[in-house]
């Protein structure tokens, strides 16, 4: 049963220099219990699209979509109050910088209980116990003591665990993790990823993991959606993506990984991600694609079928036999 269905999501920002399209005709589909990784570099619109879904973008953003349905509820037509009911309870999000995601003026316990108070009707004692239970669930030692700590007294890894505790407090159906481990050290990253996977297995919630790290994707995801310059360019199961990428960007990205290097020089992708001022006509990747021809530079590419990974390309890579 589809938990989240988003069709043709577009987000534009009005700036000093005109309208900037951060997300362009994006489709997202998540079933209950899925683990979807959204991969992209800066400028791919991966964070913006999820923030748009949650209604967390500033007023200058212009969000349009054909369809945005979560758990049967049409998100496009929600009142602010109805939205507040769902966000934080059924859909929750954790962010990249654990040190700045928590309010430095309040204790960790206060913030967890605040999340509980906003969505569940529990007594004070019940909230306290649930907070301790949550901190144990995320693997924080000495939970009672930690409840009274302030964020700056805890390390980055511990703060991220607190964030996760707040996010799972109301047993959400979907957890969106926006680069949750990018700011953490490698050994702590391994701990946090393991925790997220464990929680996903225990609660059966769906997980959308936004990242730019292909290693993290390979370790955790079931399905992968690749974004470039605001558009989705490919989506496949994780094994298929790494073995047989269909879009030239995905192919080039995987080839550029240092661990796949076969010589001193890495196969690199020339050029930069198009920004506001140099958006190409036709395929957005065409200026950097070595196989681009006049069709690519002049016409927007169609989305291929699911056998070709939904690749947005005129000439998707085929891996026959």
């Amino acid at each position, binding site marked *: 049963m589809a938990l989240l269905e988003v069709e043709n999501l577009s987000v534009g920002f009005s700036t000093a220099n005109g309208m900037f399209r951060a997300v362009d005709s994006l489709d997202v589909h998540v079933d209950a219990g899925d683990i979807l990784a959204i991969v992209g*570099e*800066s400028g791919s619109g991966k964070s913006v699209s999820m923030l748009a879904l949650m209604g967390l973008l500033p007023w200058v953003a212009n969000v349009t979509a054909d369809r945005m349905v979560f758990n049967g509820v049409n998100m496009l037509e929600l009142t602010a109050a109805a939205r507040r009911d769902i966000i934080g309870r059924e859909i929750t999000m954790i962010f990249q910088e654990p040190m700045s995601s928590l309010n430095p003026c309040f204790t960790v316990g206060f913030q967890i209980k605040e999340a509980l108070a906003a969505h569940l009707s529990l007594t004070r004692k019940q909230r306290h116990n649930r907070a301790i239970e949550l901190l144990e669930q995320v693997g924080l030692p000495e939970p009672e003591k930690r409840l009274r700590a302030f964020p700056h007294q805890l*390390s*980055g*890894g*511990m703060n991220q665990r607190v964030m996760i505790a707040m996010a799972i407090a109301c047993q959400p159906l979907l957890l969106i993790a926006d680069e949750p481990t990018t700011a953490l*050290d*490698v*050994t*702590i*990253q*391994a*701990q946090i*990823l*393991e925790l997220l996977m464990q929680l996903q297995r225990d609660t059966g919630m769906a997980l959308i993991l936004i990242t*730019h*790290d*292909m*290693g*993290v*994707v*390979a*370790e955790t*995801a079931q399905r992968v959606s690749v974004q470039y310059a605001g558009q989705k360019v490919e989506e496949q199961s*994780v*094994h298929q993506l*790494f073995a047989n990428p269909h879009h030239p960007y995905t192919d*080039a*990205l*995987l080839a*550029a*990984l*240092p*661990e*796949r*290097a076969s010589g*001193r*020089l*890495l*196969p*690199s*992708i*020339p050029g*930069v*991600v198009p*920004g506001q001022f140099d958006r190409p006509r036709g395929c957005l990747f065409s200026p950097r694609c070595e196989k681009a021809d006049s069709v690519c530079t002049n016409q927007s590419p169609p989305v291929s079928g699911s056998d070709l990974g939904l690749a947005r390309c005129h000439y998707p890579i085929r891996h026959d036999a």
Partner: protein
Amino acid sequence: MASTKSDSPLIVADAISRAYSVNNGWLRPDATVHALSEASFELHAGETLAVVGESGCGKSTLARVLSLIEPPSSGKFTINGTEINPDSGLPSVDLRASVAIVFQDPFGSLNPRQKIAQILQEPLLINRPTLSKSAREAASREMLSLVGLRPEHYERYPHMFSGGQRQRIAIARALMLDPKILVLDEPVSALDLSIQSQILNLLVELQDRLNLAYLFISHDLSVVRHIADEVMVMYLGRVVEKGDCRTVFEQPRHPYTQALVSATPVADPSRRQQRIQLKGELPSPLNPPTGCAFNPRCWLVQPQCQTSQPSLDIVAKGHELERCVDVKSSGAQAVACYFPVNSG
């Protein structure tokens, strides 16, 4: 990864340490943070020595000491024969010119109010006052094209460039005084993957062309594996393992190195395997554990580890380890552990 190794090393470091005193409140005496303790190594021309480790391991402090931003608190090192120790004063112009540093953040390392022309010319303006204006300009323009930027970029401001381009400018600026040694403090960590490969290629090309020595600091093991000749693993200010890059990664001897390699995600879903899960947090430099700094998190810990600090010793042919049971492995590897793994 073979490179022309000259016989005399450009840098010889001998137990350099750097400590800071930190305000510990009104009534208590200042606490001492040992950010770097007794690091010893050599660096040759045309070679890349990588330094890996996590927060608090001292790699940034090492970068600052080696690029002469801060003096060592104890120990000494030589650059091109000139010795630098705690009593050395300000570095001479020649010494300053032999080492340059490239920082991690491409958005903070260039002065937002200066044009690229000014940014590139400044080192020459300060250190080579006899150069004429046109000579300075010619040198800057040449350097700009050497790092792959175009002539029209010369008159622009930094905010008009992307992260990768700014990092190229930072590298160009670092090379203006013809240094022999480049200290690179996480130069590609803040860049996207596709740009990262461009910059790494540029660094490799420059190293070949100019026979530069690199001290490459990074937390990203896949990048290090690709570019480094030798690697030094640091934990809480100490070097715990050192040796040839391939050997250290394929046969890590120190438990921490093993955990680090194991924790790094591999971009291959068919190789999902059981990772070594380190318990606990990174220790605070203000409150280091007694004995071996890694002992609270080490799964092979013995009482000896908690009481005394193992020193870096040769395991075999440059692989250093003290009190190691089996001294058999090949390759140049040094480990600071009483009970190294993969022995025998």
